[in-house]
C-alpha cells in the first residue's frame, strides 16, 4: 500500500517535471523565433544569409546598419528586459503571495523611472550612473513601502494601497521633470511614461545584459526556497530556511532587475504582472516558475513589440500594446479574486 502511494507520488512528480521541461522548452523556442522575427522584419526585409553575415561582423551594404544598429539592440533590449520584468514579477508575487503585488502595481517601477528621468534630463548622467541611480531609487521605494506598511500587523491590502499612492506621487514627479527638461531631451524622457523599445542603442545595453546574466542564476537558485516561502513564514522557517536572509537577497536581486530594465526601456506596462500568472497557468502551481516566467516575459515584450511595429498603420510603442493586453486581464483577475473573497 505504502509503496503504491510513493509510486503514485513519484509518477505525479515525474509527470509535472516533464510538463515543466516541455513548457519551458516551447517557451524558449518561441522566444528564439520571435528574436529571429525581430531581426528579419522591418522596412526592408533582407535575405537571411545577408543578415547572418552582417551579424558576424561582415560589412554588408545597408544590411549592417539596419541589423546591427537598429534591429539587434532592439531585439536584445526586448529579450532581456522582458526576462527581467518576468522573473522579478514572479518573485514578488510568490513572496507576497498575491498576484497583484508586483513591481508594476506597487510603485517600484515608478521609483526607478523617476530616478532615471531625473538623471537623464537634469544631470545628463552617463548610462552607468542612470543604472545605479534607478536601482537605488527602486530599493529606497521598497524600503519606504516596507516601513510604511509595517505597523502593528502587516496586510497586503495596505501595502498595495500605499503602493498606489506612492505611484501617483512618483508619476507626478516624472511629469514635472519632463516639463522642465530641455526640449531635445523630451522624446527620450517620454519613453518613461509608456515604455518603448524605440531608439534602443547598443551602448545602452551592457548594464541590462550584465544584470540579467548575473542575477538570473541567483534568482533561479533561490527559487527553490521561494516555493518554501510560499508556504508561509512559519512553515518555511520550520523547514530550516533562513527566511530573512533569503528574502533580502531575493528582494534586492528582483528590484535590481526591474530597475535596470526600467532604466533601459521604460516601464513596459503589465509585463511583470502578467508573466507570473501566465507561467503558473502553463506549468502548474507548486514549481519554481522563475525560468518559465522570465521566458513568458520575454515573449510578451517581443511579441507586443512586433504587433506594435507591424500590425497597424502607425508604430505603437510596446508599452501601449502590453497595456491594452494586460489591463483587461488585471480586471478579470480582480473580479475573480473578489468573487472568491481573497481581497
Amino acid at each position, binding site marked *: 500500500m505504502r509503496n503504491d502511494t510513493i509510486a503514485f507520488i513519484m509518477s505525479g512528480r515525474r509527470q509535472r517535471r516533464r510538463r515543466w521541461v516541455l513548457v519551458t522548452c516551447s517557451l524558449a523556442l518561441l522566444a528564439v523565433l520571435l528574436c529571429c522575427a525581430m531581426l528579419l522584419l522591418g522596412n526592408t526585409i533582407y535575405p537571411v544569409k545577408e543578415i547572418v553575415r552582417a551579424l558576424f561582423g561582415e560589412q554588408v551594404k545597408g544590411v549592417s546598419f539596419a541589423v546591427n544598429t537598429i534591429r539587434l539592440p532592439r531585439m536584445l533590449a526586448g529579450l532581456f528586459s522582458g526576462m527581467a520584468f518576468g522573473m522579478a514579477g514572479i518573485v514578488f508575487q510568490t513572496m507576497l503571495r498575491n498576484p497583484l503585488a508586483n513591481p508594476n502595481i506597487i510603485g517600484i517601477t515608478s521609483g526607478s523611472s523617476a530616478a532615471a528621468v531625473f538623471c537623464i534630463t537634469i544631470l545628463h548622467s552617463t548610462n552607468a550612473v542612470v543604472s545605479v541611480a534607478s536601482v537605488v531609487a527602486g530599493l529606497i521605494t521598497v524600503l519606504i513601502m516596507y516601513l510604511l506598511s509595517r505597523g502593528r500587523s502587516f496586510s497586503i491590502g495596505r501595502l498595495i494601497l500605499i503602493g498606489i499612492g506612492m505611484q501617483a506621487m512618483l508619476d507626478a514627479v516624472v511629469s514635472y521633470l519632463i516639463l522642465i527638461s530641455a526640449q531635445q531631451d523630451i522624446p527620450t524622457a517620454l519613453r518613461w511614461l509608456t515604455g518603448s523599445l524605440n531608439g534602443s542603442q547598443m551602448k545602452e545595453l551592457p548594464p541590462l545584459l550584465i544584470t540579467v546574466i548575473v542575477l538570473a542564476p541567483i534568482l533561479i537558485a533561490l527559487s527553490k526556497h521561494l516555493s518554501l516561502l510560499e508556504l508561509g513564514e512559519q512553515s518555511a522557517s520550520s523547514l530550516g530556511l533562513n527566511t530573512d536572509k533569503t528574502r533580502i537577497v531575493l528582494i534586492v536581486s528582483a528590484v535590481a532587475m526591474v530597475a535596470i530594465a526600467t532604466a533601459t526601456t521604460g516601464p513596459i506596462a503589465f509585463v511583470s504582472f502578467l508573466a507570473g500568472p501566465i507561467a503558473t497557468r502553463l506549468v502548474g502551481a507548486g514549481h519554481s516558475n522563475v525560468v518559465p516566467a522570465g521566458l513568458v516575459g520575454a515573449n510578451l515584450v517581443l511579441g507586443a513589440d512586433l504587433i506594435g511595429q507591424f500590425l497597424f498603420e502607425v508604430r505603437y510603442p510596446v508599452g501601449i500594446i502590453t*497595456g491594452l493586453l494586460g489591463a483587461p486581464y488585471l*480586471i478579470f483577475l480582480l473580479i475573480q479574486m473578489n468573487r472568491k473573497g481573497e481581497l
Partner: protein
Amino acid sequence: MNNFSDISEQKLISSVPKNFKRVLFVCLALLVLCAIASLVLGSRVVRLQELLDGLFHPDAESYGANIVRKRVARTVFALCCGAALGVSGSLMQSVTRNPIADPSILGVNTGASVFVVSGIAFLNISAAHQYIWLALIGAAITAVFVFGIGSMGRGGATPIKLVLAGAATSAALSSVVSAILIPRSYVMDQFRFWQVGSVGSGSWSVVLTLAPFLVIGVVTAILTAPALNALALGDDVATGMGVRTGVLRLISALAGVILCGAVTALAGPIGFIGLLATHVMRLVLGPDLRVVIPMSALSGAIILTISDILGRLLGSPGELEVGVVTAFVGAPLLIFLAIRSKVRSL
C-alpha cells in the same frame, strides 16, 4: 445596534459643529487671499496699480492690466472646478461609504477622458459643450463599472477593492487613450493641455459652460446631505429612518458624476481634490454632511487654486499643470489613510 447609540448619533448630527463659524470665516478669508494671489502671482508678478487697473478700469491699457484680466477668468474657473471636485469627492465617499473614494482614484476621470478623446478623434467634435456630454456619459459608465467590480464578493465595496478596481480600469482606459492619440497628431495637439489636467484654458465662456452643471450638482448634493447622513449610519438604519437608499445612492452618485465629469471635460483629469477637500473638512468639522458638503466646495476651491498658483510658480516661465501638483499633495494623504485604517476594513 441599541437605541441609545442611535439617539446619540442623531443628536450629534442634528447640531451645527461649535467651531463652524470660525472655520467658515477662516475658509472665506483663505478663499479671498487665494483669489488675490492667483491674480497677482505667476510667471510675471503684477504690481498693485496694475491689479487695480485690470480689475476696475476697463479702459486702462497696460501689459499688467491685461494679464490681470486674463487671470480673473482663470481664477474663477479654478475656483469653480475646485468646488465641483470637492463636492464630488464628498458625494462619492458617502455613496460608497468609503474614505478613499475620489473621482481620480476610482478611474472616473479616465473614463471621461476616453469618451472625449474618442469624440474628437472619430466624431470630429470640437466644441466644449459637445464633449461635456461625452465626458458625462464616460464618467457615468466608468463609475458604474468600477463600483460593480469593487463591490463584488464578500464584504461589499471595501476601500482596497474599489481602489484596485479603479486603478485597473484607469490603466486599461489610459492605454486606450494613448492608442487613440498616438496616430492622430491633430487630436494630440488639441488635447495636450487636456491630458494632464490644467485650468490654464479658463475663460469666461468655459466658466459659463461649467456653471449649470456646477449649480445642479451642488444643489443636489446639499439637498441630499441629510439623507446621506442617515446612510452613513448604515443601510438598515437609513431604511428605518425612512430613506430610500437605492434612489438616494443613484441621485447622489449621479450628482457626483455630473460634477467631476463636467470638470474633466473642461479642465482635464485633475486628481485627489475631492479626497483632500473632504478629509480636511471632516477633520475640523466632524462627520455632518450638511456642513461637510458645502464646506468641501470651499476647501476644494481653495486647494485647487493654491495648487494652480504653485504650478505656475514651480513651472515658471512655463507652468506646471495643476493635475501634477494635486497628485503630489493628495497622494500622501492616500498613503496616510491607508496606514491609519484598520486592517479589517481594508
